[in-house]
């Protein structure tokens, strides 16, 4: 029995000819957990907003959406608000009220339920979510993960039959994301709520999703169980979507000569079983590239920082040297001080104790403008970078700052290289996240900075953009820029960094090249590394490395 039916759904935005969605038809069964993926701009967000009719974007729609046997536009407003719930991407933007309790009650109050009913529902839900301790808190004091759980709870209070989620974990750290997904799974299993979730991070979802659908260019590219989808992507040698296949299934598909759909491992546990069934890999350790001509560019010497005079140290006695020609990744849990560390290195906040040196010169002695031009900082949210109406104006201001006569040519070359020169006339806010990031990067690159400090560059990025961004970093690195980045994304760090550091409690917990760094970690490591740990195979941390250093000699024993 299907709860949602899409029939030849097409959509185009006003004043635009191209269709964001083209003739999409599919059914969603009651109680199904469906994950919707695809590169940005593929129409997935538009699709779920059309299903949530009350916030449907303006534009031309063709085709029908049937919810529970009724056309979506015939549904009374109360029913629509109650029966289809929606959780959005940004944890902050969805919150309306100052206190958690008010926020939870907001939807029920809107629908005019009696005070008794509201109180009963809220009490139930708070217990289910274990939110008792948060009830009296101010919403702005919560962590991102807590905010998103409150958002989920407040939507669930309306008793929806269909829950729509628009990249709900893209702004969360991996631990909070996992917690959120677990909660969604419980809602699906214990209440039978149908789930339609748009998400990029498929790795965590493979185990919980019943069905996966990948969209491209407004059309359905793949549809089926996670295993079927991964198999078909591999089978068609699809370049766009190969980045969407998580590393464990990807590895097994690459190594098996005749893979079978039902044998594709999804988790570490299944992966280990699969690995133990095969033998005969001969391993050959790839030598690490040798460092040539390195010098110290940026160093922290006993740096201490705290935000409030009486507060706790965020960075305490931090010592680290960054060398030229590195892609240096700083990883660590939430609140470990990663972003603070990057800001102190960028000279944007001043440590209370300790010194930061740039090429052996104390930061305090270098003129600020000059320093910011040689040690450039790319913020996590590139929107904050833009003041003017068009990219062109922003770029010309960036050129002015460098006092470079050839600035214009340089900027042209850079925007050409980044593939954003055609966007010069656009308003920064009309761009996608990836384009905006590149536009900000262009402003930084024009001064030819020696060091690029990058804060969480892959947050909310789809796998393909992530891969492209990683390649861009490698290119910049090759051009002689030293890159320091802060990231939650272990897989990304393992793949592209040349050295990794773990920050814990404001101090360096460990630092080394990615292979020995992750091989030394038990939990904080890539899934491929967790997969091979304890097997008799050569330890590796990424699919690429595994494929390069293992050679399959014998066939697979079934």
């Amino acid at each position, binding site marked *: 029995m299907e709860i949602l039916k899409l029939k030849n759904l097409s959509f185009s935005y006003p004043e635009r000819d191209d269709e964001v969605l083209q003739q999409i038809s599919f059914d969603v069964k009651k109680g199904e957990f469906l994950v919707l993926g695809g590169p940005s701009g593929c129409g997935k967000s538009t699709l779920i907003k059309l299903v*949530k009719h*009350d*916030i449907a974007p303006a534009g031309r729609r063709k085709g029908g959406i049937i919810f529970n046997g009724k056309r979506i536009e015939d549904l009374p*407003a*109360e029913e629509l*608000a*109650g029966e289809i*719930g*929606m959780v*959005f991407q*940004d944890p*902050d*933007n*969805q*919150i*309306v*009220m*100052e*206190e958690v*309790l*008010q926020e939870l*009650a*907001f*939807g*029920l*109050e*809107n*629908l*005019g*339920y*009696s*005070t008794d009913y*509201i*109180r009963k529902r*809220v009490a139930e839900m708070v217990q289910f979510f274990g939110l008792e301790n948060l009830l009296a808190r*101010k*919403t*702005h004091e919560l962590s991102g993960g807590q905010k998103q759980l409150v*958002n989920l709870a*407040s*939507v669930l209070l*309306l008793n929806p039959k269909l829950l729509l989620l628009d990249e709900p974990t893209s702004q969360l750290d991996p631990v909070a994301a996992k917690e959120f997904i677990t909660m969604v799974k419980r809602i699906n299993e214990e209440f039978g709520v149908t789930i339609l979730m748009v998400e990029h991070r498929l790795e965590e979802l493979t185990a919980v999703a019943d069905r996966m659908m990948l969209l491209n260019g407004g059309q359905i590219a793949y549809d089926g169980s996670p295993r079927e989808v991964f198999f078909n992507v591999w089978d068609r040698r699809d370049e766009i979507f190969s980045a969407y296949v998580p590393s464990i299934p990807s590895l097994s598909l690459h190594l098996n000569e005749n893979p079978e759909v039902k044998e594709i491992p999804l988790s570490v546990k299944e992966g280990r079983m699969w690995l133990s069934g095969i033998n005969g890999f001969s391993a050959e350790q790839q030598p690490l590239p040798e460092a040539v001509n390195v010098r110290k560019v940026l160093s922290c010497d006993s740096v201490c920082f705290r935000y409030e005079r009486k507060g706790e140290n965020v960075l305490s006695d931090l010592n680290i040297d960054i060398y030229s020609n590195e892609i240096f990744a700083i990883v660590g849990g939430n609140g470990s001080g990663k972003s603070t560390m990057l800001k102190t290195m*960028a000279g*944007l*906040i001043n440590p209370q104790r300790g010194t930061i040196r740039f090429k052996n010169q104390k930061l305090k002695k270098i003129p*600020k*403008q000059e320093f*910011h031009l040689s040690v*450039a*900082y790319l*913020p996590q*949210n590139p*929107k*904050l*970078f*833009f*003041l003017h109406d068009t990219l062109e104006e922003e770029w010309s201001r960036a050129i002015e*700052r460098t006092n470079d006569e050839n600035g214009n040519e340089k900027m042209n070359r850079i925007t050409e290289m980044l593939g954003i020169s055609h966007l010069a006339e656009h308003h920064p*806010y009309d761009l996608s996240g990836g384009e905006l990031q590149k536009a900000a990067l262009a*402003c930084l690159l024009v001064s030819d900075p020696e060091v690029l400090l990058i804060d969480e560059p892959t947050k909310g990025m789809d796998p393909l953009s992530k891969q492209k961004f990683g390649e861009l970093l490698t290119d910049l690195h090759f051009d002689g820029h030293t890159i320091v980045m802060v990231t939650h994304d272990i897989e990304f760090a393992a793949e592209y960094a040349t050295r990794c550091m773990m920050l814990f409690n404001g101090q360096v917990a460990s630092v080394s090249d990615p292979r020995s760094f992750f091989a030394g970690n038990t939990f904080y490591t890539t899934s491929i590394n967790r997969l091979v740990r304890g097997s008799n195979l050569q330890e590796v941390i990424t699919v690429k490395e595994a494929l390069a250093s293992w050679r399959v000699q014998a066939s697979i024993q079934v």
Partner: protein
Amino acid sequence: MLMSFLHPFYLIAAVLLLISLTLLQGLVEQLRNRAKSFFFLTLFIVAVNPLVNHRGTHILFYFRENPVTLEALMNGFLMALSLLAILILFISYNFVLTPGRFLYLFSKILPQTALLAMLTLRFVPLLIRRLDEIKIVQKSKGMTITEGRVKDRAKNGVSLVQILLTWSLEEALQTADSMKSRGYGVTKRSSYERYTFTKNDIISIVLLLVLFAGCLIGLFNGYGNLTLYPDLESTSMGGAEWSVFVLFLLYIGFPLLVEGREQFRWRYLN
């Protein structure tokens, strides 16, 4: 009340009662922090009044050929006490009536305005945090508000706010969607809170009304208000005046009694 009973005894008593109330509520710190500014403000009023106001018959002395009268001095003194009482009352008021409670009261009478205020209140800390982030990012572009000419700093300051404006209005579209998707505007809103009075509340309100009416009657009969002009009235009080004074004390001291009873019970009956 505090602004109408312009009589030194009434006002001194009111100030003392209100100070005890703030102390009982544990607001020593707040009182101490403001003590200095309160002191200068009252001093200012006491000093300014006789300088600009020359009415009255009891001339104390001449200041720059202008008479300084006892009446004007008394007037300044009364005004200062009245302001002091109100400012102290507001310390206690801000403690008791938190923004949440304030808007809760509001939302019964003006629901839409209260919702607007709540939304605004929810945005403020978010915007302060965003402004901090913007400040740091823009600093890397050389935009600063801590050094340079005042004109440039003012310009940079508003530029930061401009980024905040554009960014936040863009983000807030999602807030509007989130409201709509949870049924905002579908029907008349109900409330999680119960607006009911307990028996105690009703008794308290009736008592306060009676006291208030008593004070008012006293006021209209010329009690509790020192006549200053043309001739300063004596501050001494007669029999009927005393009863009005007691009513006034009970009225101003009511919250003190309630708070005191609570604390007594907590301490000795628990």
